[in-house]
């Protein structure tokens, strides 16, 4: 927090309207996330990495315009937007199915923000900026799938949930968007979870509890995997 923020208890009423607030961008789990090892000692079985500072736009076809949405999407991203629970990656964006006739555009560096996409979908879809409304957690490691199995009722075996598979589902009573990204260079599967900002801390603690027995490596990153 910047030093200019004034604790609310010291603001006199007549000054309230001119109080300065800090608008620094912070992760909703900034306090809950403590970088380093957690749980069982030894080699970490699970790594939990929060990905910070991404652009996330939800694209939802207007009523009856689903078909009209596909062409501009393909023109913009070079690939078709997923029409079923899948995630597709391009050089600079990941398109993740988020429900019938809707998908997320996940990217970095301002290339696919709402402002940038508004023209593309002007006649077919509504956009909604979710960039700071969600927390993105990336889960990998040899026990990553074991840990997720405690939280998810979806079969995450590679045969059933290969790279590129996606699901809108619930974990610990919390709505999430889950997808499997590209494997890590060491061959480990990578699972990504997008969760509403205000539910993120709760789910984060649940993940830590579930992963503790395997040993956890906690970190955060600015890079989309």
């Amino acid at each position, binding site marked *: 927090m910047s030093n200019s923020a004034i604790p609310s208890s010291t603001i006199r009423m007549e000054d309230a309207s001119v109080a300065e607030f800090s608008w620094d961008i912070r992760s909703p789990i900034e306090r809950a996330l403590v970088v380093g090892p957690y749980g069982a000692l030894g080699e970490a079985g699970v790594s939990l990495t929060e990905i910070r500072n991404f652009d996330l736009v939800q694209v939802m*076809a207007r009523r009856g315009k689903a078909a009209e949405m596909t062409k501009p999407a393909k023109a913009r991203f070079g690939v078709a937007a997923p029409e079923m629970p899948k995630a597709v990656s391009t050089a600079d964006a990941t398109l993740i199915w988020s*429900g019938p*006739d809707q998908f997320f555009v996940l990217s970095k560096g301002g290339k696919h923000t709402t402002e940038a996409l508004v023209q593309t979908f002007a006649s077919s879809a509504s956009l909604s900026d979710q960039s700071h409304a969600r927390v993105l957690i990336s889960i990998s490691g040899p026990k990553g799938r074991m840990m997720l199995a405690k939280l998810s*009722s979806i079969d995450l075996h590679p045969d059933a949930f290969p790279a590129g598979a996606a*699901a*809108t589902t619930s974990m610990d009573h919390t709505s999430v968007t889950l997808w499997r990204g590209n494997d890590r260079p060491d061959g480990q599967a990578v699972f990504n979870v997008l969760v509403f900002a205000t539910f993120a801390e709760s789910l984060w603690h649940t993940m830590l509890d579930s992963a503790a027995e395997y040993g956890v490596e906690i970190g955060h990153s600015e890079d989309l995997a």
Partner: protein
Amino acid sequence: MRIVCPFCGERELSEFSYLGDAKPQRPVANAGEDAVYDYVYLRDNVAGVMAENWYHGGGCRAWLKVTRNTLTHEISAVEPTAGAGAAKVGA
């Protein structure tokens, strides 16, 4: 009980919420009090196969019409209700 969402696939029950019998239709505005009473309060309370409205709120947030036997919990059909997404099913 598991419900096969036409959009998401087979999912556990706790991802869905229940609205109940899909048969009652909201009466027209001037239908009169008896029709509204019937719509809001009276139920067939079917013992057997019933069409019901379910919401996949813990998943894709689509409304679904589920045909289910209330005596056995057996589900024989799941279809999306009219609205967003419906056009794509089966495509």
